[in-house]
Structure formats: C-alpha cells, structure tokens
C-alpha cells in the first residue's frame, strides 16, 4: 500500500488548508526550524490513530488544534484526511482506495471516518493492526528512537525485538 494524499486543516501550525501528494520512492521534506516539518509527521500519526497526546508533544489531544498567533485567531477544530492506495490488498479491506479521516473539536470531542462513513477510533487502529503501522514500530524513526536503542536501558531495545517477533 502507499500513501497518496494528505489533507490538513487546523492541525497545529496548518491554519490554512493543505493538500500534499506523496509519490513512490523517497520524498524529502525541508524547511527552517519550527516551520512545520515534524507537524506533517504528527498529522500522519494522528490520523492513523495515535492515542497519546504526549507523543504529539501536547498535554491534551485538543492541543493539536491551531492555537492562533498575534495576527490570527485560534481555530475551533483540527481535521486530517489521509488517502491510501490499497490496490495490492495489503490492508484487510476490499477497498482499493481508502480515506481515513479524523477530526477533533475544542471540547475534546472527536470524529473518525473510513471512506467518509463514521467509525470508531478502534476501527482505524484495527485496520492497521497487523501491519505494524501505527504501533511503535518502523513507520516513524526519529532521533529519540535512535537514542533509546543505543542507551543501555536494554528495556527499550528488547521491546523492539519483541514487537518484531
């Protein structure tokens, strides 16, 4: 399967609607410090069902909603939609194209959807359960993972092996 398109609106620093297409192979993401590169990675993790606000660097999940700047008012909700090409049948569903949607409001209230029909968060997580995506495996590699593999807190290192087994 591969990621086709990512649509972001109101998520973290993306106060303006964004639609980003990923192709095959290696896509680079560049830009100055603080411009929003890791926020793009956060949006993908979030729409795939990330449950920990901490992992997204917030205190509560509604921290992902655009919080305003001196020049712009804060927004009332954050919304991310990921379009996935499943024509190889990698995911346990009959659809060849899958739209995963997630929305959160200031109240903390959330909405989830698969191919535009409402579902629960667990339905999204179950879709990816067998693939290793969306769990702490190798869909995201960041500097702190490199550190925890090296540090002699063999706890982390073992844990990664057990996940692969």
């Amino acid at each position, binding site marked *: 399967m*591969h990621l086709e398109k990512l649509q972001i609106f109101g998520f973290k620093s993306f106060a303006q609607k*964004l639609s*980003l297409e990923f192709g095959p192979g290696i896509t680079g993401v560049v830009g100055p410090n603080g411009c929003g590169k890791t926020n793009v*990675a956060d949006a993908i993790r979030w729409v795939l069902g990330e449950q920990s606000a901490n992992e997204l660097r917030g205190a509560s999940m509604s921290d992902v909603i655009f919080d305003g700047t001196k*020049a712009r008012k804060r927004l009332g909700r954050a919304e991310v939609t990921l379009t996935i090409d499943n024509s190889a049948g990698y995911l346990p569903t009959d659809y060849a194209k899958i739209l995963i949607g997630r929305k959160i409001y200031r109240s903390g209230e959330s909405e989830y959807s698969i191919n535009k029909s409402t579902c629960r968060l667990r339905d999204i997580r179950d879709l990816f359960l067998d693939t290793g995506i969306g769990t702490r*495996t190798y869909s995201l590699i960041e500097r702190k993972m*490199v550190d925890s593999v090296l540090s002699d807190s063999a706890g982390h290192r073992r844990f990664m092996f057990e996940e692969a087994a």
Partner: protein
Amino acid sequence: AKEMFVKTFELVRRNFTRMFSRLFEGGEADLRLLEPGNPLDSPIEIVASPGGKKLGRLSLLSGGERALTAIALLFAIYMVKPSPFCILDEVDAPLDDANVKRFIRMLREFADRTQFIVITHNKVTMQATDRLYGVTMEESGISKVVSVRLDAARNEAESEEIAYE
C-alpha cells in the same frame, strides 16, 4: 513464544551484521544475548567495530558511529517485516557527508517496497530524493508547503507554491 523470539532474534542478528558492514565499509558488528539460557528476559548487547578498529563496547564509539549503528539495528528489525511507508525525522543529523551517502544508498535499496518520507536539513540527503517539499512560514506561525526543485547548476532551490484547494 520462546522459539518465536529466538528465531526473530537470529533473523535480526543476521540482518544487523549485514547492514552494519554495508553502512560501515569493512566494519563488523554483532548482537549477543547476555543470558543465552534465558532468552525471554535476557538483555541484548550490541558489539561493534567500525573498520579496522577492534570489536568493542558501544560506549567508546563516536556520536556519529553510534547513530549509524542504531540505524543499522532499527533497519535490521524493520527488515523482518518491512512497513509500506516510513517517516524519518532528521536521523541524518549526526552523520558526516560520506555516511549520509551510505545511509541514502541503503534507503534506495528499500525504496521499491517502502515509501520513505525523509525530513532533513542536510543538502546531500536533499539531492538524493525523488521529490522535495519545502515547508515555509512566510506568515509567522502559519505553515505552507511548496514544491522545491534543487537546481544543481545554480546550487539553489527554486520553489513553486503547491498544495492548495
């Protein structure tokens, strides 16, 4: 469960020694169960020797050598069950240019079965990508994305705004 783990461990171990000698030309490394009789609880030790030096503890290696060793291990585990996409967030930061090139070459070998999204500040990495997105914040605190073309001749990036609906 015990056999499952040992089987996975041996697989990762073989991948790791191979990955390591590709990333460190002429280097060798190994993974060891500190308590072979007790695989389910045993800590896992990494021994490594970048080319020409003696096999030794991880702690004496340099910052960049440790990072590259961790990358070799993370990818050794990834190889057991390659994820269809993988986001790498600035993992190339501690690497010198020659090591960045080897790291990219490794990504290229996996890029036919895994879609990579590489967040980076490194110019060598940027040149190895199939496409490049630049995240900008012209308006303070608001992220936008543009398509970037690296003009090797002028050694400059030209960008055009994309990704709006």
